[in-house]
């Protein structure tokens, strides 16, 4: 027996006096070392987690604090009555909008005096604060002649610097006098705020609206690109899920093991690592230049993102098919199910949670993808004919959320930067929703075996 060769008699330690058995209370060196290294490792792990949490908190705070102002807007609310005579008189003037502006300023002055404030101001200052108001007022009364003679309330967007002043981005110290806003104007603004004429309201336009021109950050909204992203995700979902699942089932369950399928497998794995911009240029060359699909269309964006998402879905689907125990397949085959029946009745339902998780992760990746969209022109879209102009479907030009955020971040006006942060919040809300959906679906489909 092997035990005899290792008996104490022959081991060198026992050659002299018998080994005194050690107390269990005293730690020997080796144990102490082992325990110390275990403790160290735990600390490293905890440290790593804490660093991760720290950065997450910093990121979340930064995004929220920078992005929240995008959801509010500063408006100048003035109520006044325009009589028929005033309207006729103004329409006779050479500079018609100028005349309307005079009415507006008059009304503003009246309201200010009513609340007991007195700040001297001129037309130029008002123009710096709310922009040229005459046009808006004239448009309104031309469109609604019936409103003449009755009191009408106007909500006019304050200029972006006033907006910045009210949410703390612009202060008296940082403001330099320019044609946009002067320091003295801030006194007027303060008075108007106190009189309740300038106030901050929730910016619905940011959520529902389309992008605006570079000179009007206040009017920019992410709504159009949300819809663009939504259409793209529909295309991605309805193409990549069936194609991806069918491909994985074939490769995993039916395909013979040979060089050809090996090559396909390697290529799918490699495809998952291809930079997204490459897919973008492929989409440009194939879908737009060769197939002449419309530029900037969510359909094309969706097709490009489908190509990008497919490897992710195929890899995760194959992994979850592989994870289904073979005993289930045997059981189905054993009662005389065909291979397809055994897959569709038993294997696929069990693999469903994994497939759905993979699909949603793939979709989330696609939702956040910017680079390929830049190449197919889904960027910098300003809606014409808002509000009816942009929800038109798969082949009308549109933008997507990440591309819109990129566009805003690249613009000069600081107010757009704020919009970019706000856009990131909207994007993250979408991603969070998708992740929660993934968790719920997973729970629903998960079964023990």
């Amino acid at each position, binding site marked *: 027996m092997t035990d005899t060769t290792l008996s104490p008699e022959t081991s060198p330690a026992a050659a002299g006096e018998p080994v005194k058995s050690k107390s269990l209370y005293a730690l020997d060196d080796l144990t102490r070392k082992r325990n110390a290294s275990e403790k160290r490792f735990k600390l490293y792990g905890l440290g790593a987690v804490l660093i991760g949490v720290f950065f997450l908190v910093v990121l979340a705070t930064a995004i929220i604090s920078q992005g929240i102002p995008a959801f509010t807007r500063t408006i100048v609310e003035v109520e006044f009555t325009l009589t028929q005579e005033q309207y006729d008189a103004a329409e006779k003037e050479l500079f018609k909008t100028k005349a309307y502006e005079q009415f507006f300023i008059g009304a503003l002055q009246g309201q200010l005096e009513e609340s007991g404030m007195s700040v001297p101001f001129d037309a130029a200052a008002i123009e710096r604060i709310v922009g040229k108001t005459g046009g808006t007022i004239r448009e309104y009364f031309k469109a609604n002649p019936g409103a003449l003679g009755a009191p009408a309330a106007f909500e006019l967007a304050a200029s972006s610097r006033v907006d910045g002043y009210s949410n703390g981005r612009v202060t008296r110290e940082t403001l330099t006098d320019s044609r946009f806003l002067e320091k003295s104007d801030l006194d007027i603004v303060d008075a108007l705020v106190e009189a309740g004429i300038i106030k901050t309201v929730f910016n619905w336009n940011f959520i529902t609206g389309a992008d605006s021109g570079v000179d009007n950050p206040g009017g920019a909204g992410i709504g159009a690109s949300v819809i663009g992203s939504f259409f793209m995700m529909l295309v991605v979902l309805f193409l990549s899920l069936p194609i991806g699942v069918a491909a994985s089932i074939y490769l995993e369950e039916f395909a013979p093991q040979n060089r050809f399928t090996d090559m396909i497998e390697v290529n799918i794995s490699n495809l998952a690592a291809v930079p997204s911009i490459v897919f973008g240029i492929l989409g440009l060359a194939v879908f737009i230049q060769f197939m002449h699909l419309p530029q900037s269309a969510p359909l094309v964006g969706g097709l490009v993102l489908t190509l990008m998402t497919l490897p992710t879905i195929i890899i995760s689907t194959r992994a979850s098919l592989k994870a289904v125990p073979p005993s289930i397949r045997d059981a189905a085959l*054993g*009662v005389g199910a065909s291979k397809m029946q055994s897959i569709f009745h*038993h294997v696929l339902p069990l693999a469903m949670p994994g497939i759905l998780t993979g699909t949603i992760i793939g979709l989330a990746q696609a939702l956040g993808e910017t680079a390929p969209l830049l190449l197919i022109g889904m960027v910098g879209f300003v809606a014409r004919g808002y509000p009816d102009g942009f929800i038109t479907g798969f082949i009308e030009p549109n933008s997507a959320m990440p591309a819109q955020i990129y566009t805003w971040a690249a613009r000069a006006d600081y107010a757009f930067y704020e919009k970019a942060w706000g856009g990131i919040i909207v994007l993250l809300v979408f991603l969070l929703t998708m992740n929660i959906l993934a968790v719920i679906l997973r729970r629903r489909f998960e079964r023990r075996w």
Partner: protein
Amino acid sequence: MNEMPNLEQASAMTSSKISAKMVQVFYGDNQAIKDVDIEIQPRSVTAFIGPSGCGKSTFLRTLNRMNDTIDICRVEGSIEIDGEDIYDAKVDPVQLRAKVGMVFQKPNPFPKSIYDNVAYGPRIHGMARNKSQLDDIVASSLQKAGLWEEVKNRLDEPGTGMSGGQQQRLCIARAIAVSPEVILMDEPCSALDPIATAKVEELIDELRENYTIVIVTHSMQQAARVSQRTAFFHLGILVEEGSTQDIFTNPKDKRTQDYITGRFG
């Protein structure tokens, strides 16, 4: 269980249910089964015994072409069931497996309700025209598997929630629900405790009346208890085949004797 009258045994000998001739099974270049000739009698239990890796499970799986699912597996020779070659090009393995059911080593109920587990086979073979017919099939299968009394009030509970022995009997019920003629059992009791094993063995003995049963087992006591005929495999060769009594009391081959007396290897 083994005192089948000799007369009955002799009459059964006249026409065998399964007849295998010169069967060879290859996994790639490795030959797993070599020159196996065996006649399996109808309405009796045949046990395959032998050390691990001797090819008994492999041979069992060739009987309902479960080996087809393994790409590199190749079968030569002829296996006939009721005189029909099951490896003929005209034979669809799906149809064959409805005729030759299988119970596996580990209980593998579908992660579905007890009812659906049993009803799955009849459903895919279109054996029931309506719900009440299906109910009848499920009930009678569970009765035959001796499980009915235990589960009749909880047919909609998951089959995976039962004890191991119950799960294995559920798998047997599932196999007999499609009215097979032959039931193959691949070490059906290896994952069960002695009490559950006893129940399954009792069930096998009852099923003998209506089905031809082939069972692979590692337990020689089990083979002795449940089978009428025993085949001893060693290194891919069928060493000896005969009535269970003869194999265990009077083996002809030295290797068989060594194995059943535990002096092997």
